[in-house]
Each structure stands twice: as structure tokens, then as C-alpha cells.
């Protein structure tokens, strides 16, 4: 009998249950209840976010596939398309950091190769609590090893991403994994179960009891029962997945199959019912035929298991033998467990008895959609009151503190654990503004970046959403790439709370506005709610992944200064905006005020100017100003090359020195150029009505900044770089 307690365990409300009964005309049995609990979970159904996600721009002339499939697809010309998506694996990564992160990588990879694309790049957006806390330290170490272990083994380079540290992630770290694949346009595959009588094949790893209720777990807050949830996290096997990638791409290339879907969250339940629902067909499977690695599994357990490295394939009836031969070549089983039927039903048999008989439409498309209550959070009253900010006399010390802030410091400790070069396409090593990958035998080169400042979003969600998109595009502009498509991962607290839903709506509006201005479509992504422990939510954290194209890879440019005596030019203007900055946070311990404001049209013009300057070959280095402000940007320009170059800056803006050095005013880019190209650069700026001013030149062994004829910073590069490099490894030193 189904009672309240059982419903609670399945995270279903009484109203939802009543709707199920009404839809199927009877009480569901326990397996069926399990199926609904998964597919109607927030994680799978997007029931709270749907109404808002609809407002995002998803159209564009290059969009081959928008939201709703395993991943989005953009046409990049030359007969090719890119398939990409970002997804969260937050909850599992806190409970079991290594496996949680590893299976996050495995999951997103399957979403990409399922569509016929060979994955060529992984990026990760990570958010942790401060490393002074030993638990946070262990979580980061586990997550990084997990990503490293899975990505390296399978041979897909992890080429970039971003990492932020904030107290709000101590009990809810975020692990968002992005993957991009490349496919010939004619060879794209979809999750379809077409052709009555076509066999349904189960391929890959055997099914065990791992991961049961993973999707439901990701749809609730954490509380005291955290430790008990460990068995809910799946275990990854990258070797098996490598075999799956090769075998699946081979059967797809030979056109032996009709459709294919990975068994990710919600496993066999999701893959069978989604494929049928998308094709208006039904599926019938026999659980006795499902390969199992544990004994006496119940139908409930088999249907809900989230064992990794499994795929469901609908093959062409006459090609089954050939499909099985290819899988055998890769030492994998491909077992026929059922067939496509008409009538739109998911029918599951076990021991000769029917244990599930449900209309797929009800499972997939009739989940209730909620327009949840919205309320502007009251914390905004106090965060917007900014008390007077003391000004230091000399700025060496604050700059040193910023260089040693974990969020701003060098991330080499992380990325050198990732194989970022395998596949030999990595044209720009990690640490630059964006990752750049060539496509062998093609002219087009890809650039990818992930971005999202949650402090901005916490203090002013809409502005934060806009900036996330704008900065990602700016990062692409800095390497010479034009943005073509966006994926997003939206990490928030509990959507049943009106304040969280308000943050969500505001951030989405910001993202939508920025995407409209930049003319780039959102082709999919993922929403992760319930990032909340004991009632305390994370800051709203959208992570924006933008893919761009470089038309000419020979024009590729990197952020570090290249030689002595090069004029340094600032594109954009300095304003007195210091609140919500990393400086206030890590030096003065204040997370207050409004984030910098952004004029999206001006931003776009600055980026276009930057792109033109790069394409004309009149700049030597390009780097954007972001967290840490102008001073940190310049410091990075000084030592991002193996050979370091100091510089002398002469700043004349009549604003507070702290804001000038460390404020995070948007739409600014620092470039260096050779003397003979300086005038061309300035003329181009004037022609385009862009603010561009010479602020100094490269040279020397120190970073020297003068403001209104006063020296405010003079620091040796040796020391600056050491601080910047030592911050992340420091807590992990073996003593």
C-alpha cells in the first residue's frame, strides 16, 4: 500500500500522487511509483524551472538542435557541427568527491557521444569552500582527482574551466562539467525509438544497486542524513566508457541503429520512456534479460539503478548481428532486452509477469509544472548598505593579498593533474582567457570558456546574470573568437522558497538579456536546485559556457606580455566601482554593495573592436579585466608567459586609487602592442568610438603603478609570481 511515508521517501507530494492516479486510472505499484518519483523529480522534470527557462533565447540560424535533447548542436560550417552541454554533479561530489566528480565526467561524455559526436574537450566549473577548512581541502582534492582519473583515462583533454572559493560552498560544493564534441552534420544521432518491432539493445556495464535514487537525491536539500547517502553515489569505470565511446561511434558511423540514449540519471527508466515519448511509440522490455552484477535485484531496483557506463540502443532489425559483432570486438555485450511497440506504453516484464504498464506520455510530458512563488530576499536590504571603505596609503600589501587569494591564484596545481593535451588539438594551454582547440584538417578553430561570479549574483542577481554572459564572451574575444552558442548550468538553493525562485528568475532575465544583445542562442544546459544544507543555500551560481569560433588560427593571441618597450593600452574606461569586488572580500572581508554595472551594448562594441584589432594583427597580447581588477589583470599579463616582463603604468583617472586598482568595472580589456602599430590601434578605436588609452609600457623586472604622479604599487615580478603560484599547492604540501 502506498502511504504518506512512502510518498515522502519518494519525494512526491500528495497532489502529485493524486495526479498520477488520475493519469493512469489506478494506483501505481511500487515499481511504477519509483519510476514516477524519478521522472517527476526536479532533476529530471524541470518542474520548477520550466516557466522561466522558456524565456531564454534559443533560436539562431546556426542552431541545429536547441534545448530538449541530450545536448545542443551548432552548425560551424565546413560540414561540421559542435555538440556541447554543461551539467552539474554537485550532490554526489560532496558525498563522495572522487566518484561524484568522476561519474559527472562520465555522464556528460555520454550525452555528447550519444549524438554521434566524438568528444574533444572537457572543462569544469568548480566551487569550493575556503581551503583553510580541512574538509573543503579534502573535497577539492577528491574532486580534482576524480575528474583527472576519468578524463585522463578515457583520453579526452580537460582543457579549462574556472574555480572560485567562497564560504557558501563549504557544505555544497559545485562540480559542473562541460563537454564538447564534433560531428559531421549528416551523422548526427538522436534518442529515438522508431520502427515497431525494432530490437532494444542494452550495452555496456552490468546493472547493480548503485545510484538508486540519485536523481531524487539531487532534488532535495542535505540534512543530517548526509553520511547515509553515500551508497547513492555511483562508481565510474572510465575504461568501460572508452570502449563504449569507440563501439557506439562505430555502429553510428555504419548506420546500423535507429536511436541511442545513455542511461544517466534515472537509468533504464529514463532512457526507455524518453526514447519512446520522443517518437510517439512504446517500449517493451524484459528485466530477466538485463545483465546484472548483483543477485536477487527487484524490478524496482533494476529500473531505478544508476549504474554507470550503460547505453540503450534501438537497432535496425536486420542489423542486430552486425551491431553485436562490433560490440564484441570491443569486448562489450549488446543484449536484446525488448522491442519497440506501438501504443505509447512502457511495458516491463519480470519473471514472466508484467510489473510496469504505464503510458510514456504521463511519465515524460505530464509532470506538473510549477509557477512557484517569488519574493525579493530581505538580505538585500543590508547588503546594499555599504559602510565607508578605508583606503590604504600604499598598495603593495593589498595586491599581494589578492595574488594569494585562492580564487585569483594560479590554478596549475589543478590543471596539471588533467591531461589537457591528449588528442593534440590544444592550441592554447590552460591559464589563458579561453581554451582553444583546432579541428584537424579544418580551418575553423574552437574557443571555449566557462564563467560565473556568484557574489555578483548574490548581491544583484540580474546584473550577475548579464555579467556572466558578457564576461564569457569577452574571454573569447581576448583570444580572437566570436561567440556562436551558449550552454548554462544554473545552481541554486531550494526552489520551494520564494527568495530562491526570485534569484532564479532574476538571473535568468539577466542571462536572457545579455544573450539577446550578443545574438547568441542558448542550446541547452542543466538546472541544479536544492544546493542547500540545513536550510542555508549557496549563492545563486549560474555557470555560462560559451563556444566561439576563430576563423584564422594563425591570429591566435595569448594574455601574457611578449616583449620589452611595448605600449600597454586599456580598452574601456575605469570607474569608481569597488563594491562586490574580490578586493573587498579577501582584503577587507566584506561581501557587500552592488556589483559593477554593465552596459551590454558598449561591452559588445569593445569586444568587436578587440576582435578586429586581433584580426589585423596589431596587438601582441590581450587579457580581460575581471576579478581582482586592473592591478591583477596587469600582474597576470606580466607573468603569464614563461618569460616574464615587468611594466610601468601611469594612471590619470581621478577616482579613488583602491577602486582604480582593484575595482571590477566591466567591459575593459588590456592589450599590448608594438610601437609601430600603436597609432593604427588608437585610430581604429577612434573610428569605432571606443575608449582606448595608453596607460604605460612593458619593461623591467617590477610591476610599477603610479596614480596621479604617486607611486602606489612597486612589486618584483619574482615575488608576485611566487605568491600567485604557491597559493593552491600550499595546503597540500606533504610535510
Amino acid at each position, binding site marked *: 500500500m502506498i502511504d504518506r511515508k512512502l510518498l515522502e521517501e519518494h519525494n512526491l507530494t500528495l497532489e502529485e500522487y493524486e495526479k498520477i492516479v488520475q493519469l493512469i486510472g489506478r494506483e501505481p505499484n511500487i515499481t511504477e511509483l519509483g519510476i514516477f518519483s524519478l521522472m517527476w523529480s526536479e532533476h529530471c522534470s524541470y518542474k520548477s524551472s520550466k516557466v522561466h527557462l522558456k524565456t531564454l533565447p534559443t533560436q539562431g540560424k546556426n542552431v541545429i538542435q536547441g534545448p530538449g535533447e541530450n545536448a545542443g548542436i551548432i552548425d560551424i560550417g565546413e560540414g561540421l557541427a559542435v555538440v556541447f552541454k554543461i551539467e552539474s554533479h554537485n550532490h554526489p561530489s560532496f558525498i563522495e568527491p572522487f566518484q561524484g566528480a568522476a561519474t559527472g565526467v562520465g555522464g556528460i561524455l555520454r550525452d555528447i557521444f550519444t549524438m554521434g559526436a566524438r568528444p574533444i574537450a572537457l572543462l569544469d566549473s568548480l566551487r569550493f569552500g575556503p581551503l583553510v577548512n580541512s574538509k573543503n581541502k579534502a573535497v577539492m582534492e577528491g574532486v580534482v*582527482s576524480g575528474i*583527472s*582519473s576519468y578524463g*585522463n*583515462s*578515457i*583520453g579526452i583533454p580537460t582543457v579549462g574551466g574556472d574555480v572560485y572559493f567562497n564560504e557558501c560552498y563549504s557544505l555544497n560544493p559545485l562540480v559542473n562539467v562541460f563537454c564538447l564534441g564534433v560531428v559531421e552534420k549528416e551523422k548526427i544521432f538522436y534518442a529515438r525509438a522508431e520502427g515497431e518491432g525494432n530490437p532494444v539493445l542494452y550495452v555496456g556495464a552490468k546493472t547493480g544497486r548503485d545510484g538508486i535514487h540519485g536523481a531524487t537525491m539531487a532534488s532535495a536539500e542535505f540534512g543530517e542524513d548526509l553520511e547515509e547517502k553515500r551508497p547513492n553515489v555511483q562508481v565510474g*569505470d*572510465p*575504461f*568501460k566508457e*572508452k*570502449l563504449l565511446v569507440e563501439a557506439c561511434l562505430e555502429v553510428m558511423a555504419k548506420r546500423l541503429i535507429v536511436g541511442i540514449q545513455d542511461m544517466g540519471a534515472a537509468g533504464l527508466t529514463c532512457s526507455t520512456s524518453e526514447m519512446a515519448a520522443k517518437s510517439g511509440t512504446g517500449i517493451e522490455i524484459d528485466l530477466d534479460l538485463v545483465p546484472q552484477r548483483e543477485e536477487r535485484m527487484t524490478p524496482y531496483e533494476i529500473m531505478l539503478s544508476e549504474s554507470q557506463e550503460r547505453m540503450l540502443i534501438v537497432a535496425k532489425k536486420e542489423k542486430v548481428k552486425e551491431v553485436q559483432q562490433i560490440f564484441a*570486438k*570491443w*569486448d562489450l555485450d549488446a543484449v536484446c532486452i525488448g522491442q519497440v511497440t506501438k501504443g505509447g506504453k512502457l511495458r516491463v516484464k519480470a519473471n514472466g509477469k508484467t510489473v510496469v504498464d504505464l503510458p510514456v506520455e504521463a511519465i515524460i510530458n505530464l509532470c506538473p509544472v510549477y509557477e512557484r512563488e517569488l519574493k525579493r530576499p530581505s538580505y538585500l536590504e543590508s547588503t546594499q548598505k555599504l559602510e565607508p571603505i578605508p583606503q590604504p596609503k600604499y598598495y603593495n600589501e593589498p595586491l599581494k593579498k589578492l595574488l594569494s587569494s585562492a580564487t585569483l591564484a594560479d590554478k596549475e596545481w589543478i*590543471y*596539471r*593533474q*588533467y*591531461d*589537457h*593535451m*591528449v*588528442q*593534440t588539438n*590544444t*592550441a592554447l*594551454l590552460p591559464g589563458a582567457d579561453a581554451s582553444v582547440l*583546432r579541428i*584537424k584538417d579544418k580551418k575553423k578553430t574552437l574557443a571555449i570558456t566557462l564563467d560565473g561570479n556568484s557574489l555578483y549574483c548574490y548581491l544583484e542577481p540580474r546584473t550577475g546574470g548579464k555579467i556572466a554572459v558578457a564576461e564569457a564572451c569577452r574571454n573569447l574575444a581576448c583570444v580572437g573568437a566570436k561567440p556562436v552558442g551558449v550552454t548554462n548550468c544554473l545552481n541554486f538553493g531550494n526552489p520551494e522558497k520564494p527568495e530562491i525562485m526570485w534569484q532564479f528568475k532574476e538571473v535568468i532575465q539577466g542571462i536572457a538579456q545579455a544573450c539577446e544583445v550578443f545574438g547568441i542562442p542558448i542550446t541547452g544546459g542543466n538546472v541544479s536546485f536544492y544546493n542547500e544544507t540545513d536550510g542555508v543555500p549557496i549563492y545563486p551560481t549560474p555557470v555560462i559556457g560559451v563556444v566561439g569560433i576563430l576563423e584564422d*588560427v594563425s591570429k591566435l593571441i595569448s594574455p601574457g606580455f611578449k616583449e620589452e618597450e611595448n605600449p600597454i593600452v586599456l580598452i574601456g574606461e575605469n570607474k569608481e566601482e569597488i563594491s562586490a569586488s574580490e578586493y573587498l572580500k579577501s582584503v577587507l572581508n566584506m561581501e557587500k554593495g552592488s556589483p559593477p554595472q554593465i552596459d551590454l551594448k558598449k561591452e559588445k562594441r569593445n569586444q568587436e573592436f578587440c576582435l578586429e584589432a586581433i584580426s589585423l594583427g596589431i596587438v601582441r597580447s590581450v587579457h580581460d579585466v575581471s576579478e581582482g581588477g586592473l592591478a591583477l589583470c596587469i600582474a597576470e599579463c606580466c607573468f603569464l608567459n614563461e618569460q616574464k616582463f615587468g611594466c610601468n603604468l601611469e594612471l590619470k583617472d581621478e577616482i579613488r586609487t583602491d577602486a582604480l586598482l582593484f575595482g571590477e568595472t566591466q567591459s575593459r580589456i588590456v592589450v599590448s602592442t608594438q610601437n609601430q602599430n600603436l597609432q593604427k590601434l588608437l585610430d581604429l578605436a577612434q573610428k569605432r568610438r571606443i575608449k582606448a588609452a595608453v596607460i604605460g609600457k612593458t619593461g623591467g623586472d617590477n610591476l610599477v603603478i603610479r596614480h596621479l604622479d604617486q607611486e602606489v604599487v612597486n612589486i618584483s615580478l619574482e615575488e608576485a609570481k611566487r605568491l600567485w603560484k604557491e597559493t593552491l599547492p600550499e595546503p597540500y604540501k606533504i610535510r
Partner: protein
Amino acid sequence: MKFGVVIFPGSNCDYDTYFVLRDILEQETVFLWHKDHDLKNVDCVVLPGGFSYGDYLRSGAIAKFSPLMQEVKEFASKGRLVLGICNGFQILMELDLLPGAMLRNKSLKFLCQFVTIKVENDKTPFTHKAKKGSVLRIPIAHYEGNYFAHPEIIQGLEANKQVVFRYSDAQGNINEEANVNGSLGNIAGITNREGNVMGMMPHPERASEILLGSQDGRVIFQSIIEYNS
């Protein structure tokens, strides 16, 4: 000449190596499937990097049982050229074609980065176009690349000039700081006693194009090509 690149389940630098040999160096290159018994008349067998069999049990420990390895052993015993890169090096040690073993890196972390290695022997088929004492900038990417062998084996390697590459600084100094993974004697690459089988941890196929930051790796493939002509 004709190169053969072996594909094991879990190989992941197979295509990278194939690409450099075929497209950059314009040599006839074929893939060799680990389950076959056919070396397709190649002049040089390359065991590429990756995680054959997921590196389960121990790197290279399962790959050595692949059917094709019988032929590779025979091929090597006839003095023909065999090159193992990274996981390929590990497999060559498991096959007893090269002495020694790999421990985990001294940092106990996977390491992917450019390193500099010094050419210690330029009289091998794999390095005769490089100059002794010259320094090559080539990336590494491994978790188990910390070369280890018993002292008498090390002595033998040194006495027979089987140490081909050592981790060094950019000026060619062999010191502890340059020894990224903790290898005995900074060893980055060795040959067998006869000199026709070489294993190296750095990836020359990742350093064969300017776009990727270095083309110092080419000299190894070019040496093989010239040796064969």
C-alpha cells in the same frame, strides 16, 4: 617507410601518433589491432600512450597478454624497431623487452606539463638525428612514470649507454628539481641492450607542431625514418 601503431582497448594516443606520422611526417602508417596476429609488414611498431585496459591491475600488465604482442616480441628479437611512448613504455617493460618498472610520481599526482629532456645517447636509431647533450621540450602526461630498477640494472643501463633521455632543466643540467616524477637517475627514456627497442615517458607526438607549442619531438620520428631509408 611504414609505421604500425598498435591499438589496445584503452589506447588514447593512438590517433595522435598516427596523425603525426601520416599527416605531419607523411609516412605510410597503419593501425595494428591488438587481437590480430598481423604486423602488416611494417618497419617500425609504435606502442602509443593511453590507458590500455584502464591501467587496471598495473599499467601495461594486461596489455602484455594481447595476441599481437607475440608478434611484437618476435619482431623485436629480429632487431626490428619498436618504440613505446608512455603507456607503450610501460607495456614494453611488462613484456620484458625493456628492464625496470614505473612507480607512481613522487607527488602522487598525475602530471601533464611540458618538460625538458636531455639527449644522452645520439647513437640510437631513435636519436641519431639529435645531438648528444641537446635539450628537447616535450610534454609528459602520466601518473606512473617514476622509473625504478635494481641498482645492478641501472648500472648496466649506464654502462651500455642505454639511457637515452634524462629529465633536465632548460640548460641541460640534470638535477633533482628537473626530475618531475622522481625517476632514478632522472631517466626519461631507455633502449634495450641491442638498441632497437626504445621506451620513453614524454610524448613526442604532442610536440611535433608549432601550433602545439613545440616541434622538438619530430627529431625522434625523423631519426627512425632516416635510419630505415
